[in-house]
Structures are given as C-alpha cells and as structure tokens.
C-alpha cells in the first residue's frame, strides 16, 4: 500500500475530503474514552482464571510458538545472535517435540546474521528500525533504516512511532511516517513484503485514551501489528494496555474486515503471565487471534520459564535453570 493509497483509504473511512490533521484529530478524539477503573478491573479479573493441566500444555506450546525471541542490546555480537537463533530453532535440546518460536528480533545490522543462521527453518527475522527505540530521527533516516533491514532479509519490521509528534497532537505526521515506512517494507517481484509492526511505546503515551487513539491511528496508516513497547521504557507491556489494544483490533475488524495483530513486549517473564495474556486474547479479541500470525510476545527470558514449566509437565518434577540453555 503506497502512502497515497493509505491516505485515500483513510479519507474514505473518515468520510472526509482531505486527510488533514484536524480531520484525524476529530476522528481520534471522537473515539469513546477509556474507563480506567473498568479496564484495570477487567484485566485483573481475566488474570484470575484457573488453567488446568491439559489446557496448560496447549497454552505453553502455543505461547512458545508466539515468541519473538529478542536481543536488543548495544553489546549484541554476531555470536550472541547466532546462539539466540540456535535457541529459536531448538528451544529445548532435551525434548525435540518443543515447538519453535515465531521470530528472532534483532537490530537491523544483525539481520543478515540471523537470516543466515535461521536458514529455511521457517522462523522469521524481525528487525527494529526507524531509529529504535527513541524514534528521534528524520523521516529520511528512518526510511533508510527500514529499507536497509528489508534488503538484508527481514521478514518483519518493528517501527516506533514519533511519540513527540503524537503527544503534540500532530497526528498527520505520525500517520504519514507509518504509511511511508509501510511502503518501505515492500519488496519487488514475488518476494513477500515485510510485515510492519508499529510500536506505540505505551509507557510514554501517558493515558489509556492516548493508547486507544494511537492504536487506531496505526491501524489506519496500515500497521500489520500493533506492539506495546520497545522494552526500553518502564512500564512496558501491561495487561490493561494490551486489553485495550486487543479491543482496538477487534473493533477494527468489525469496521474494515481486516485482522491486525497485537504484540505485547517487555516485562512478560513468567509462564503464568503468558497464560494470562492468552486468556485475554481469547476472551477479548477472539480465538482468531490465537495464532502467531496475529499475536506475539516480545520477550527473551519468558522462553526459559516456559521451557521450565514444559519440563515440569513432562517429567512431573520441578525443573531448574541447569536444565535449559543459557542465552
């Protein structure tokens, strides 16, 4: 979708002649306000479900298959990325029945290494781009960053929105940037385009209302996924924020028929948390989202805990860090 087609579709959806900042503002501020107490209570209530053993087995395997195994450190080395890829392909060497993760998420300059290590395993390479994590760079730099990662073989691009522009009310700028990055994700010929995940960095958006608006704005501009956080800002993914975004993708489907994915990232470390998120996905968005194509966990240490729980279910005894690979 080119920026102009994104714009024309947005014009159609908003029912306006030209997509001005004012038109976007009217539309986004016309979304219903979020009941803070209500959404937090709902998220807390969904976290209390009891998951019995057979469901837990399914949920653990499903959660492993939804992980974007992530390393986004300044100290990332080619060796670190290779070992992460090895873990992505074979999470638990003691049980070859363990599912693979969905993707490996790295910085753009590490894409070719991840691509090479993952080979034809079917695991996607996701790259963060657009001056991650702050997003403070000119559009030209952001587009170059994106194209570079796409050229190196990234299957998915995790972009950050310009929170400064969003908070200043410059919605049109945010829209244009997302649409332009989306275009930069395109590939020529038969090769599939890179999927675009749009990071809202909800920890910097200050209010739930802003999270709802940013979600709709990102979907309007062509996001394939909306993602909570970079993982570099606290708070990162929380249950209420993810709940809100799941509501947004559900409502977006009613409006347009399109299915947009959701990716909570950062701060999800235990299997218990992951299972709670899956309950929420099923209850709020629906079971159509219970697939790696529509729901992902951005995490690194979560995988280790899921493997420990998986071993516990398989062997009947509690496991420990000595029995999983170090990453």
């Amino acid at each position: 979708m080119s920026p102009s087609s994104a714009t024309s579709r947005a014009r159609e959806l908003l029912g306006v002649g030209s997509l001005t900042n004012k038109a976007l503002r009217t539309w986004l501020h016309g979304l219903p306000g979020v009941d803070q107490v209500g959404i937090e209570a709902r998220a807390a209530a969904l976290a209390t479900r009891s998951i019995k053993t057979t469901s837990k087995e399914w949920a653990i395997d499903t959660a492993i298959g939804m992980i974007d195994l992530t390393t986004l450190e300044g100290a990332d080395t080619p060796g670190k990325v290779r070992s992460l890829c090895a873990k992505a392909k074979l999470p638990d060497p003691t049980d070859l029945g363990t599912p693979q993760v969905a993707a490996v998420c790295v910085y753009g300059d590490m894409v070719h290494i991840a691509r090479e290590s993952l080979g034809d395993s079917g695991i996607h390479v996701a790259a963060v781009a657009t001056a991650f994590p702050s997003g403070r760079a000119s559009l030209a730099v952001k587009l170059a960053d994106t194209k570079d990662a796409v050229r190196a073989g990234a299957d998915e691009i995790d972009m950050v929105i310009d929170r400064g522009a969003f908070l200043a009310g410059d919605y049109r700028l945010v829209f244009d940037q997302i649409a332009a990055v989306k275009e930069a994700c395109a590939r020529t010929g038969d090769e599939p385009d890179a999927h675009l995940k749009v990071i809202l960095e909800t920890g910097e958006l200050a209010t739930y209302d802003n999270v709802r608006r940013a979600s709709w704005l990102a979907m309007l501009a062509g996001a394939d996924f909306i993602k909570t956080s970079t993982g570099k800002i606290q708070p990162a993914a929380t249950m209420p924020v993810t709940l809100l975004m799941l509501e947004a993708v559900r409502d977006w489907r009613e409006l347009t028929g399109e299915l947009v994915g959701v990716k909570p990232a950062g701060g999800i470390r235990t299997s218990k948390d992951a299972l709670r998120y899956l309950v929420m996905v099923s209850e709020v968005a629906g079971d159509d989202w219970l697939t790696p194509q529509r729901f992902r966990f951005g995490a690194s240490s979560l995988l280790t805990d899921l493997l420990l729980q998986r071993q516990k279910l398989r062997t009947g005894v509690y496991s420990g860090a000595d029995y999983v690979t170090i990453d």
Partner: protein
Amino acid sequence: MSRLEVRKTYKLYIGGAFPRSESGRSYEVMSSGRAPKFLANAAQGSRKDIRDAVVAARSAVKGWSGATAMGRGQVLYRVGEILEGRREQFVAEVASSEGLTRPQAAKVVDAAIDRWVWYAGWPDKLAQVLGNLNPVAGPYFDISAPEPTGVVGILAPQESSLLGLVSVIAPAIVSGNTVVVVASEDRPLPAISLAEVLATSDVPGGVVNIVTGRTAEVAPWLAAHRDVNAIDLAGATAVPWGELEAAAADTVKRVVRPAGTGTDAVEPDWFATPDLSRTRAFLETKTVWHPKGQ
C-alpha cells in the same frame, strides 16, 4: 478484667517474607504430653510453596555464597544474639511443643543457642580446615578449596523442634548454601519463631526458607526438584526415606541419610557435640592447578 485470647495463625517464611500457603490451608498445632492443648494454627504448605521457596533460595545463592566468610560469620553470630534475646519465648515453645518441663526446655534452648554460635564461628575457618595445598608431581601449586553446593533441602527433625532444627540449618548455611526447610510436622512453633528471628536479623531473604506442613506431602517434591542440589533427610521419620533418596538420585543430589541403620529413620542425640560432617556434606571441592616457577 479478663483479656481476649490472641489466637495465632502462623504463615510460611519464603524469600524473607511471610506469605500464607498458596493452598490457603492451615492445620492445628497441639502441645505434646498427656492432655494435648491447642497451641496455634500453622500454614499447611503445598508443593507450590516448596516450588516458590526453591526459587527464593536459588536467587539468594549468589549473594550469600559471594559474601565474605567473615561477613557470614558475623551475620550468623547476630542471629545468636537475637536468639538469646528471645530465650524465654523459645523455652515456652519448646516446653509445650516437646512436652518438657521448663528447666528441661531451658537446657534445650541453651544448647540450641550455643550450637548456633558454635557454627557461626566456622565460616572463615572452613577453607583452612577442609581445604588443602596438595603435593603434586610437577611444578604446580595445587590447591583444593571447599565451595557451597547451592540450594539444600532439609527435612527438619520431627522430635527435636529447636535443637535439632538448629543443628541441621546452621551447618548447611555457614558455607554459603541456602536452604529450604520443611519444619517438624507436629512441632513447628520453634521453627516459626526462628523464622521471625531470621527475618529481623541480617540474614538476607531467601537464605533460609521455612515451610510448615505435612512432611509426607511435600518431601517428595523437594527431593525430586531439579533445582535443589542436596537434601538432608534428618526428619524423614514418618516417610520412607529410601524413596526420597531414590528421587534425589535422579538428579544426583547429595543426600544426608537419617540416623540409624535400618529403613526407619531415628533421631540422633542432638545434644552430642557436633563435628563437621553435616557441613562437609554440602560442599563441593574446587581444585586449582597453578604453574609455579623454580
């Protein structure tokens, strides 16, 4: 004016905090003797409490084993001071728990405090006594030094609720191990008071974790837990300890068998002067070869 009785429902001691059992259960603790009297309610820990306790113990290993030996000794000596300050409380609890007269209980408590202080002197001496400079046929310094094994599971003695308890916890932690203790099933009160002593001392949270409950229910989970490095079966009197040892063997744990020669565990005489065997049981030996010049 008569006072309303303050009835107590104690909790577990895990990671420096006092959580209720995950299961929400508790059980009645009665006094020993001819006419058992209700003493208090204790939390009835479950396998998930054991799991949480092991997680807490594991995360405390680095800090506790990394502390200087001198520092560990001082921290443990401070526990001895607080025990002394709570002497009266322990005497009352040991008397009611074990069915002893007050003078008998006082003797037990004194021995327990002395035992703790005795072990508190050991951290900075273990390496000298158990370590060695090995003579080898080559130009090397060859040094063996003791290191803690990690997380130790302990089934506390069932009969000796304080002296026995101290005699199994202290030797495990002096060297830098952290412990998950299953307290005496019928006599848990001194263990709970010891937890309160530890919580107000300088011992970091997670170094000692105390779970009260049914030994036969939780012991197999502790013995089979793959993140536990060693287990002391001192209190495995009502459960077949051979099975626990077999479960522990699956993950090559170090095992300290209960006293006695048969399949039934018996309690040793805890008043006997200890040696280093219990401490040594939870140590690994690291040997370093270092080239030396002529």
